[in-house]
């Protein structure tokens, strides 16, 4: 934290207090340091430790036995058998092991004895020796630990956890952050992290140009008119606008939109359409003639038609999303202590009454409609929302996931979140409400988005490279105030808090810039890594299951909606030029011409100056768009259009029902893991085949060769259908899953080494 900021002032006051607290536990801390099975982060201290403790595991009756630790950063559980990996002993350990929970995710600490239970806070005293400790977490996990013997020790560690987790105190937040990221070692380590070449942070000029090139958008350019955040504080420094608008013209448009959030380019459809997003028009402003011209140019790009989609219409406002999530949460976890045996009755009706799935459906429906529009030709589709900072993020990113296979890959998805959420100024800090002081603004819009993605993943499992485990991990990490991704409301804030020395922007990789910023001499606060640096906070086993090995290969030259019989007519494209294009409003599932929508067109005379030689709105064009909207089969290359009927939307059990205290719940065997398994086996068999062929060649060269040619066609067909390590292409992260045979062997002992 920068000195002088309000929060850091509080920290300084409170830190001594915190130190006193840790002193009380110095003895146990010393004792635990000696054990080798648990590795502290450099800035972390163990406060309390007890063993043996049993952690119930999936499957009836089975549980892990081990040690329970409370540190300044987390509650850790170290199982006796299967001690953690020793591979990266020398580097900084993974922040969170599979059995660990960060203090900041804990929402409630409950001590349970056979006769009673108690919710503990920092000040409450525990007058009995608990037999069981239950931790309710913000990410909807519920962790239970059984003490082998309820003793003073079990009471001590329970109280210790209750004392340090303090959910709503900013000071505990920053001490939490410090214990993870504040040490010199971690800072050093972070500064040495290499940049992931596949990551596009959407921070620099080149980042946006890369995206323009990737999508094949030509009529657009990157404008740096906002590079000091003078035009719009919540917008990124660089914004993509039509090529034909000059920066001087552009500057005049900001005032016409709420918060200066002008229509900006997001994505280009291979068929020609472009996706834009904008805040609502400022209607109380006088529209000059040439302003109107610029505004229209901004909306239309080079397209003859522009469809404005009122994203907020019939969609839940953030407050309702929050309310629905609370209802869902109460339903899934139940009230404490009722949750120890949540009633099953009327589960489906209550689920329906939470309306969470309705909201998921409306996001998916709106996004599917927009995807269909985009697939149908030569349009500018503008997503408009009052502030352009909530549902626009959801819809624009869902549209891209449905329409652009790249966004379904792991790097593609991460880039998408960077583009449409992080850089676009989604108010992560306020919506996440880490410090519990902005309850009115709290809203799990991002989690709603993740649920929508999960629904798509359920319906199109082989179209995604990312897996449920990935989404789940992202879901959980979003509750941790540790990542630059989630700690700020916009690029400006993010940059200010990770200030680097030079004032001018250097278009280097944004990530390194962040790190350097954190290490700037004199700044004592921690530097926050982005959540995408998974190696830092996830075990390799978990990272292994982020990718689905068998998703359909990406074909870069794919033509979405390639309908060979009736090629999309181009009748509307000929009315290019500078005339006012056809403005259509997309509302209640249908399209209608809506010139009045643009405030300047109403302002008498403004538009009358146009040479109006274009023809009247073409009914044909309109009906074609309407046809597209009905979601008729769009061919194999069309967008993924989810089924939205009641039975098709499901509750994300793997996420929301993890906490339901069922000891019988079988392990979340996602079928991806199985495909993974199968795929790796095929891979291994290939290897053995190669080996065998080698042997064969020794004996009989001729036959081996003829075999080789026989083999070929099949391998080719295989490559078409499945993405194996061998043909994943070079676009993969350096850690290829299939090369990590040791971990695989451990995971599946049935496989011969």
């Amino acid at each position, binding site marked *: 934290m920068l000195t002088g900021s309000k929060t850091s002032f509080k920290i300084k006051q409170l830190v001594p207090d915190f130190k006193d607290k840790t002193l009380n536990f110095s003895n146990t801390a010393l004792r635990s340091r000696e054990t080798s099975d648990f590795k502290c982060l450099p800035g972390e201290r163990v406060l309390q430790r007890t063993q043996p403790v049993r952690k119930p595991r999936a499957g009836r*009756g089975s549980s892990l036995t081990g040690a329970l630790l409370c540190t300044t950063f987390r509650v850790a559980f170290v199982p006796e058998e299967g001690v953690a990996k020793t591979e990266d002993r020398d580097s900084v350990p993974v922040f969170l092991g599979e059995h660990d929970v960060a203090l900041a995710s804990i929402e409630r600490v409950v001590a349970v004895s056979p006769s009673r239970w108690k919710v503990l806070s920092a000040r409450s005293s525990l007058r009995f020796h608990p037999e069981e400790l239950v931790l309710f977490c913000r990410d909807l996990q519920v962790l239970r630990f059984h003490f082998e013997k309820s003793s003073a020790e079990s009471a001590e560690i329970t109280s210790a956890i209750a004392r340090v987790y303090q959910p709503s105190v900013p000071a505990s937040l920053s001490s939490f952050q410090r214990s993870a990221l504040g040490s010199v070692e971690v800072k050093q380590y972070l500064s040495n992290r290499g940049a992931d070449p596949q990551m596009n942070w959407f921070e620099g000029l080149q980042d946006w140009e890369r995206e323009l090139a990737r999508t094949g958008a030509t009529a657009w350019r990157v404008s740096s008119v906002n590079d000091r955040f003078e035009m719009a504080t919540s917008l990124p420094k660089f914004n993509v606008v039509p090529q034909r608008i000059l920066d001087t013209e552009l500057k005049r448009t900001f005032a016409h939109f709420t918060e200066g959030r002008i229509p900006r380019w997001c994505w280009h459809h291979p068929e020609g359409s472009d996706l834009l997003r904008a805040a609502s028009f400022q209607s109380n402003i006088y529209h000059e003639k040439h302003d109107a011209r610029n505004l229209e140019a901004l909306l239309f790009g080079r397209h003859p038609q522009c469809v404005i989609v009122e994203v907020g219409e019939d969609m839940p406002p953030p407050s309702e999303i929050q309310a629905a999530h609370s209802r869902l949460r109460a339903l*899934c976890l139940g009230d404490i202590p009722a949750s120890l045996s949540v009633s*099953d*009755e009327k*589960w*489906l*009706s209550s*689920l*329906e009454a939470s309306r969470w*799935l*309705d909201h998921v*459906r409306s996001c998916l429906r709106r996004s599917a409609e927009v995807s269909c529009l985009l697939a149908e030709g030569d349009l500018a589709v503008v997503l408009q929302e009052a502030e352009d900072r909530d549902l626009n993020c959801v819809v624009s990113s869902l549209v891209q996931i449905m329409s652009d296979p790249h966004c379904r890959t792991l790097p593609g998805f991460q880039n998408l979140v960077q583009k449409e959420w992080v850089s676009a100024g989604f108010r992560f800090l306020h919506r996440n409400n880490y410090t519990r002081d902005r309850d009115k603004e709290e809203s799990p819009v991002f989690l709603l988005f993740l649920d929508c993605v999960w629904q798509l993943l359920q*319906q*199109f*499992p*082989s179209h995604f490279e990312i897996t449920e485990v990935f989404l789940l991990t992202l879901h959980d990490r979003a509750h941790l105030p540790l990542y630059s991704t989630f700690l700020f409301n916009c690029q400006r804030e993010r940059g200010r808090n990770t200030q680097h020395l030079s004032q001018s922007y250097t278009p280097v990789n944004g990530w390194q810039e962040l790190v350097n910023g954190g290490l700037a001499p004199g700044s004592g606060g921690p530097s926050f890594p982005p959540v995408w640096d998974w190696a830092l906070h996830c075990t390799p086993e978990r990272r292994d299951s982020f990718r689905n090995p*068998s998703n359909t290969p990406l074909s870069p030259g794919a033509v979405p909606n390639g309908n060979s019989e009736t090629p999309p007519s181009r009748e509307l494209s000929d009315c290019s030029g500078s005339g006012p294009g056809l403005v259509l409003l997309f509302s209640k599932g249908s399209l209608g011409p809506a010139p009045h929508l643009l405030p300047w067109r109403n302002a008498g005379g403004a538009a009358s100056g146009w040479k109006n030689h274009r023809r009247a709105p073409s009914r044909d064009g309109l009906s074609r768009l309407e046809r597209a909207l009905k979601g008729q089969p769009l061919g194999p290359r069309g967008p*993924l259009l989810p*089924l*939205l*009927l*009641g*039975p*098709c939307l*499901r*509750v994300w*059990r793997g996420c929301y*029902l993890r906490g*339901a205290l*069922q000891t*019988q719940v*079988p392990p979340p*065997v996602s*079928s991806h893991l*199985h*495909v993974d*398994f*199968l*795929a790796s*086996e*095929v891979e*291994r*068999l*290939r290897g*053995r*085949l190669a*080996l*065998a*062929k080698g*042997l*064969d060649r020794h*004996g*009989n060269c001729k036959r081996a060769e003829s075999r080789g040619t026989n*083999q070929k066609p*099949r391998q080719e067909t295989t490559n078409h*259908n*499945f993405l194996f390590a061998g043909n994943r292409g070079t676009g993969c992260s350096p850690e290829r899953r299939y090369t990590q045979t040791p971990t695989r062997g451990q995971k599946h002992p*049935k*496989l*011969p080494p």
Partner: protein
Amino acid sequence: MEEAPRFPGESIKAIAKDVMYICPFTGAVSGTLTVTDYKLYFKSLEREPPFILDVNLGVISRLETIGVQSHGENSCGMEIVCKDMRNPRFAYKQEEQSKLEIFENLTKHAFPVSNNLPLFAFLYKEKFPVDGWKVYDPVAEYKRQGLPNESWTISKVNSNYELCDSYPALLVIPTSIKDEDLRRVVAFRAKHRIPVLSWIHPESQATITRCSQPLVGPSDKRCKEDEKYLQTIMDANAQSHKLTIFDARQNSVADTNKAKEGGYESESFYTNAELTFLEIPNIHVMRESLRKLKEITYPVIDEAKWLSNVDSTHWLEYIRLLLTGAVRIADKLESGKTSVVVHCSDGWDRTAQLTSLAMLMLDSYYRTIKGFEVLIEKEWISFGHRFAVRVGHGDVNHTNSERSPLFVQFIDCVWQMMRQFPAAFEFNELFLITILDHLYSCLFGTFLYNSEQERVKAELHTKTVSLWSYINSQPEEFTNPFYVNYENHVLYPVASLRHLELWVDYYVRWNPRMRPQMPVHQNLKELLVIRSELQKKVDELHREASTRSLSSSSDRGSSPSHSATPVHTTV
């Protein structure tokens, strides 16, 4: 126009042109309707690709004439109410002779039993390379379980079905039981369904025995021989000095039964026995529940009220009750090492559901394709689940209150388990759906008749084809590629409503908007094929390499044979 495809033995009975199918999803479509003695086949060339509707006659529950106004001259309508959750409707011109003829034929062949015609299974002439009637051999199955042993014997006492006409010829009963005592037990149990062994735990020797309710009656009748019989069952298991009796019924219903001759074991007379009611409602409640489920799934689904509508059918609640009961039984055997006796009223409905589900949880053999077939043949077919009555094969009387979808409910429970343990079953969802389709179809003899005695009399095994012949001739279609043989693993599914799901792929499958979007199974099947091909290739090459190296030299002989060990992994 080409004729409808036919099975060997199937003959066309009537053809009518210009019949209109009123599709609830895509609108009316005109085409040709063919009725054979097995199916109703509608084909329309109005659409591309041609629209085809193929409904086997066995699935028809009733035919109803309906009024259709909005379809022009096609003023007559017929609704075909099916047992498998759909009701296709047709419209046609009233006066035409061909139309009258076709619906006459439909009525006749849809209900052959009521019209003194043979069921189609007796006309079906397809030949399969595998004989499914050989799948279940009771002696082999009991041998697999380690029977007979010193406590249990395979008895031929019912070989003429004289002891109990709804039981199979071979029964496993306690060795020490005397014939005259057995006669008394027979008289004391409803429908003469005495306690017989269904399954024995390979380690603890704890057993699942099944029977019907004791005929206690309002006067609290006792039968010393029955009490002794249960004591013998308990004594056969040295691990426990208790015996648990699971009565599947609701306690109140059991009391009602007691008022009229039936009843339940009194804990004071049956020492060391504990009686538990599983509180499962009767067949009428289940039939009503499925009827409601059909109402909310076909043809229109209310999107906004979908979940509360599913709730209101209570279907999942009953699935939960069944699974809970089966888990308790399995747990009693596995953890409690205690033998259990399961019964309901007659011991052929809920009892079959519970014992077969518990056996599926306890014994991984039943989770293989072959094992599951054996399970159905044994616990359902041979022990006299009254399939003919419960399904109403070929019977026009659709209001018969004896009809009930109990077997569907059982398969649903299996599907729920499959969802919770995706790798534990050798078969896939298609296998279960195929079984349910042929529960109604009357194409195979498997589910026909009510008891083994009736089947023997009808010479079913020689005159009809078994469903397992069809399935086992192409097992790859029905194989789960992720199957791992969790041997000795007991599966305890979570029987909580939040972990149960409506089996949409079965109940809502006629809605075209519900079709799965991704042929994942296709991909997986391809993976399996690639794997087996590669495996074969590896084996082959290793064999060649090792034989060559053996003949040529011995210095590098060890390495090929070492790597030639076949890869035995399963997924």
